[in-house]
């Protein structure tokens, strides 16, 4: 009888130990707790679940979280492609320093970013006072939320587009130019298409991060119900009210969206590998 082999034979030892530990630790830390959340949601009957996910406060938070995240991610796409282009193609003073500082939002704790941005954009802050004479307030409004989300999403598009631009074969651009294409046509028809998968991936990552973001947003948001209250904050409130099933229901909706985004990113990767080749 041919024995079923889970893995292909190898003389390298340690598969059982490392694979076993990986699956055990992954289940213990990530999979079981997340499964528990969905089980908790099923404690609710359908009517209560429906009441939670159609309540005006939930819908307002949903609209705000996804709307602000979408606008922030779109802004990050435009600015991110621009920054990646400038950092890869041009040589200028302090370029290396700028390149290094791009990752600041990854390294800076979100609470630190949150209080720093808030103190800048309140009406008496360095930037807020430039706008307050015109009656424009930024902190404690959706605009403030957008600024925090732009901050934390900034590195994603830059860091996905940058390596693709670096690997880009400039001879193709030269070929387009020698064939008589104006620079604008070369950029739109030759340079841009291979960047699309990277841009989409960067957009999805920035969007996913923004939807779940908490620390940098709550300080600048003002947290007024139905106006400047984001979804993660609503979960925190439900938790403090000991409405555990309601908190779980909101979290389940957010997690499902995260999974969809994750799936989208993977599909983009598969599509781009097939369309543009791997590496």
């Amino acid at each position: 009888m041919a024995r079923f082999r889970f893995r292909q034979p190898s003389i390298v030892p340690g598969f059982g130990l490392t694979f076993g530990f990986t699956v055990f630790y992954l289940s213990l830390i990530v999979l079981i707790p997340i499964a528990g959340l969905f089980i908790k949601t099923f404690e609710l009957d359908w009517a209560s679940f429906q009441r939670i996910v159609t309540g005006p406060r939930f819908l307002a938070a949903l609209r705000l979280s996804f709307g602000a995240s979408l606008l922030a991610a779109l802004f990050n796409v435009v600015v991110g492609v621009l920054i990646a282009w400038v950092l890869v193609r041009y040589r200028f003073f302090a370029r290396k320093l700028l390149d290094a500082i791009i990752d600041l939002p990854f390294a800076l704790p979100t609470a630190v970013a949150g209080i720093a941005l808030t103190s800048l954009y309140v009406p008496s802050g360095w930037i807020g006072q430039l706008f307050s004479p015109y009656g424009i307030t930024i902190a404690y409004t959706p605009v403030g939320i957008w600024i925090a989300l732009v901050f934390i999403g900034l590195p994603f598009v830059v860091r996905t587009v940058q390596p693709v631009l670096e690997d880009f074969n400039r001879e193709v651009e030269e070929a387009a130019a020698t064939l008589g294409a104006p620079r604008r046509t070369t950029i739109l028809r030759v340079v841009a298409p291979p960047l699309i998968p990277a841009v989409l991936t960067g957009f999805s990552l920035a969007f996913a991060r923004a939807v779940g973001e908490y620390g940098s947003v709550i300080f600048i948001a003002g947290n007024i119900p139905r106006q400047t209250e984001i979804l993660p904050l609503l979960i925190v409130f439900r938790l403090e009210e000991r409405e555990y099933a309601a908190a779980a229901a909101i979290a389940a909706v957010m997690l499902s969206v995260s999974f969809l985004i994750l799936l989208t990113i993977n599909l983009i990767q598969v599509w781009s590998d097939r369309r543009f080749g791997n590496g």
Partner: protein
Amino acid sequence: MADVSFDANIAAPAVQSSTDESAPVRIALIALTVFVLALFLVVPLVSIFVQALAMGIGPALSTFRDPEAISAILLTLLVAAIAVPCNLLFGIAAAWAIAKYRFPGRAFLVTLIDLPFSVSPVVAGLVYVLLLGPFTPIGAWLLEDYGVRIIFAVPGVVLATIFVTFPFIARELIPLMQDQGTGDEEAALSLGASGWQTFRHVTLPNVKWALLYGVLLCNARAMGEFGAVAVISGKLRGETVTMPLQIELYYQEFRALAQVSAFSMAAVLAGLALVTLAIKTWLEWRYADQLAATRAGH
């Protein structure tokens, strides 16, 4: 936009008018980049240090004589000292299993390992509260039979931190070890090395810089995590409050001195972030070939 100078390209290939932007466009794009990065990154960073020193160096330093601040710093160090080694051990095991063998579902396993990055920090804290909180069967059993509190206590803070920093080291090691293959290990084994010797003397030296890179990023996130820890800690002053939570507590006090304390504590974490970025940049510059190729999305 430069006009197309077809003849110039043939005569003198050095002139790249058709494959480069004109100087004014170039300068405008560089200026715009510098402006955006200054506005969104540099100004907030500088403002932290300026506000920490708003009342001079004395009040800023007095923050670190507050027993609450000291306890927050010690707790943050303790949490990182537990969470980072746990994820280091996991990262090495996962990378070994995934990179050195071929079995069905490897790609799916990698996706699962990346999962915590796409989960909101608040949800990360919530899943543990729902599983181990004092009102749950497991939580009640641990509390009543053993007197062990996990949620609203230090073990919960550690768990939440492990969750949010879960993928950092594994995702640095997996692509690198996949690229390196098993040739070196097979050579060592065929020369009579034991499995452990092979790992210590062959695999580990091959991945040490990527390992350091992963530990660096994992540690920065572990010390700076806010959302997940905020949900799970209960914010008991002097007990379960980490540095980022202590910043929030100071910030909410609205006294001028408390504001200085909030920004002084923030300045310490901002300093940690800058050191992290500096070492990270140095590693990328010095050992680019020994780090994983993919860089995006932490």
